């Protein structure tokens, strides 16, 4: 079979698998979020936590739950990292330094999984599985919970209640993430991902001498790292590491896992809104952007576009694993940056300028195609609100989406949401470039060095977590700055989303008239795609032209 045909088949098989899971998974998540009865296990969790599972919360109470849970999580994880040397299975690793512990705690709680440490050198097994991997579950569940509240804002009428955070959190963890993670962890382990509690063992090598071979509960963490769009590798090499990703099948499965929940959530949205066509319109926009992005990264990598190193070597194999090759690596790179995953199976820093630039642009779009678990859907729904508003301005009508009016108050929350991330990214990257010590952290010279800094702040603010890993980020300044950027980039948007949810839920729906913009037609798909590219893309155009565009056009 030719490489091109095999490459196409990998992509088509992925699309087919995602299409097949769209309905059952989306419907199931909708059922989980709306079922009136709690499971016995859930009632037990509510009792242990001391929460009332039957209460319905105002948006502000829902938000307080999100923030309290996340604050406690940051503190708990910080303590865990600082004290790991006193705990079981620490493998003799010292405590993580304070600034790095803050960075790592913020990183895993915000679903970012930016890593300024190297897993195999810095962490014991217990902190990985009972500290970091727990956040991989719950941070993903928090994202889905927040979008559930937003959907209820659209579907409920004249109420100030948007659901119960503790109930949503518990149900998503117990009924969605845990069963899926368990099944696919076994599949990954069968494929060769390790799952044990060994430390590094010195083993004789084939040519004589010895080699340290590492161990760890990797499969159980690998699966939720992808499924929850977290992305933090057990090892420094992340999904390029043969123990995390031993062959091309596990690689394909990991790409599927990191896309599957976010790609099915529009179905959940359509079902809860009582109109599946609304879900199809949203998922169509996601699919369009995803396909274009995969195409750009794949083509620039296959043809070594504007890369002297690629031409010298005869192919873009620097930083890529042989067992995956260019097609599968490009597919992974585009998918991981369009979700908030940030796992990598190849080194993005060594990608051709426009391919690497595309991965930055993917994150800048706000990770909405299909985005992080929950955060992707609320991100694109905010943009849908903006698209409806823009269309309303063009024809001079009060815009409405799913029967809810988009008045000044709603548009304020949507605008604040859209302005937050760029502000955080550009101020952060600007500061880093202005400070000589931080600028010196760049590994590569010229525009590519700037791309490394821009990538870092874009990745942190959008809670992606992947890196142009050449940048030396294990300094107090970068650990602190990027830690703060991750927290602002995660929780400020959530505040605006929940405020919007509360504002929408309080409205009485307006009837559909001849003047209502239909939001399920191809016309709206085109409009929303254009709004995504123009509103978000243009914000970053000056920064992109200093980095990847300058490098690619040199």
């Amino acid at each position, binding site marked *: 079979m030719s490489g091109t045909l095999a490459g196409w088949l990998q992509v088509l098989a992925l699309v087919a698998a995602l299409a097949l899971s769209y309905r059952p998974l989306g419907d199931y998540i909708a059922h989980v979020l709306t079922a009136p009865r709690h499971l016995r296990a859930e009632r037990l969790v509510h009792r242990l936590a001391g929460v009332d599972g039957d209460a319905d919360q105002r948006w502000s109470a829902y938000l307080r739950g999100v923030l309290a849970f996340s604050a406690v999580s940051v503190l708990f994880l910080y303590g865990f990292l600082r004290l790991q040397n006193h705990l079981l299975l620490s493998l003799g690793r010292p405590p993580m330094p304070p600034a790095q512990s803050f960075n790592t705690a913020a990183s895993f709680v915000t679903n970012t999984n930016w890593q300024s440490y190297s897993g195999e050198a810095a962490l014991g097994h217990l902190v990985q599985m009972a500290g970091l991997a727990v956040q991989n579950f719950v941070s993903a569940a928090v994202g889905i919970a927040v979008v559930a509240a937003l959907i209820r804002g659209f579907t409920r009428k004249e109420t100030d209640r948007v659901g119960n955070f503790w109930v949503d*959190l518990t149900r998503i963890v117990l009924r969605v993430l845990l069963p899926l993670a368990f099944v696919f962890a076994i599949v990954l382990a069968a494929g060769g991902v*390790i799952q044990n509690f060994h430390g590094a063992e010195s083993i004789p*090598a084939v040519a004589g001498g010895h080699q340290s071979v590492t161990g760890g509960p990797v499969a159980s963490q690998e699966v939720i790292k992808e499924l929850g769009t977290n992305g933090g590798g057990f090892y420094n*090499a992340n999904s390029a590491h043969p123990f995390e990703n031993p062959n091309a099948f596990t690689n394909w499965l990991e790409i599927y896992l990191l896309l599957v929940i976010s790609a099915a959530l529009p179905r959940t949205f359509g079902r809860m809104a009582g109109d599946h066509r609304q879900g199809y319109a949203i998922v169509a926009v996601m699919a369009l952007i995803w396909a274009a992005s995969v195409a750009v990264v794949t083509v620039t990598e296959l043809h070594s576009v504007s890369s002297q190193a690629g031409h010298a070597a005869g192919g873009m194999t620097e930083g890529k694993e042989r067992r995956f090759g260019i097609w599968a690596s490009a597919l992974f790179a585009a998918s991981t940056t369009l979700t908030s995953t940030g796992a990598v199976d190849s*080194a993005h820093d060594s990608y051709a300028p426009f391919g690497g630039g595309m991965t930055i642009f993917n994150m800048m779009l706000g990770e909405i195609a299909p985005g992080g678990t929950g955060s992707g859907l609320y991100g694109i729904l905010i943009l849908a609100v903006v698209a409806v508003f823009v269309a309303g301005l063009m024809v001079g009508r009060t815009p409405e989406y799913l029967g809810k009016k988009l008045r000044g108050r709603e548009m304020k929350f949507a605008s604040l949401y859209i302005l937050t991330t760029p502000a955080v990214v550009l101020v952060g990257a600007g500061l880093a470039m202005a400070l000589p010590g931080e600028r010196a952290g760049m590994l590569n010279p010229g525009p590519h060095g700037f791309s490394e800094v821009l990538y870092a702040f874009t990745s942190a603010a959008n809670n992606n977590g992947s890196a142009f890993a050449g940048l030396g980020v294990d300094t107090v300044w970068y650990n602190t700055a990027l830690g703060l950027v991750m927290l602002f980039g995660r929780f400020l948007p959530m505040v605006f989303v929940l405020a919007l949810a509360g504002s929408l839920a309080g409205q009485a729906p307006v009837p559909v008239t001849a003047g209502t913009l239909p939001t399920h037609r191809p016309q709206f798909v085109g409009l929303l795609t254009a709004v995504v590219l123009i509103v978000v893309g243009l914000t970053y155009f000056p920064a992109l032209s200093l980095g990847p565009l300058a490098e690619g056009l040199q």
Partner: protein
Amino acid sequence: MTRSLPTAVRTHLSALRILLVFTVVTGVLYPLAVTGVAQGAFPHEANGSRITRHGTVMGSSLIGQNFALPKAHPGDPGEPLRPDPAWFQPRPSAGGYDPLATGASNLGPNNPVLVRSVEARRAAVARFDGVAPRDVPADAVTASGSGLDPHISPGYAYEQVNRVAKTRGLRPATVHALVTAHVEDRVLGFLGERRVNVVQLNAALADHR
């Protein structure tokens, strides 16, 4: 009791309690259950796909190894490794095939350091294997993403046959056949790339006396 506390304190206490519940469920019980099933059903895979030769473990088939000549000064970590002509050579590695320091070079696509090192590797491999520089494939001159890549392209494996055969005093056809037996097709025929596992190939080579 908790009813008398202010709402903010109660919310944070609930948050801590539910976090502890999830820590036990998803952080302890879940990984233990996965470990139990994986160790029971797939012990070879769950323990790192180790290769055994004559009853001795010889590393993992998933983790690449160095096939270098013994160092002149074993105590000197700065001494560069020289490839051993008796073995098939793996790809360059940013971490020297040390599983405790995994990762890529992270050099940019136009970084002069990378361009120069690609050119230097091409010349070195061509000299070492006695082939024309243009016949050296891309994976022979570029470092992998993990620094532990156990695979090379079939092209790079065949390119090394004559040198390995000559050093070992074997017929080139014998070594060529050994490589052919180790060429792995794409998974399911279409996933990933065709490849040769250098660790397994060399382990088989060691048995060819």
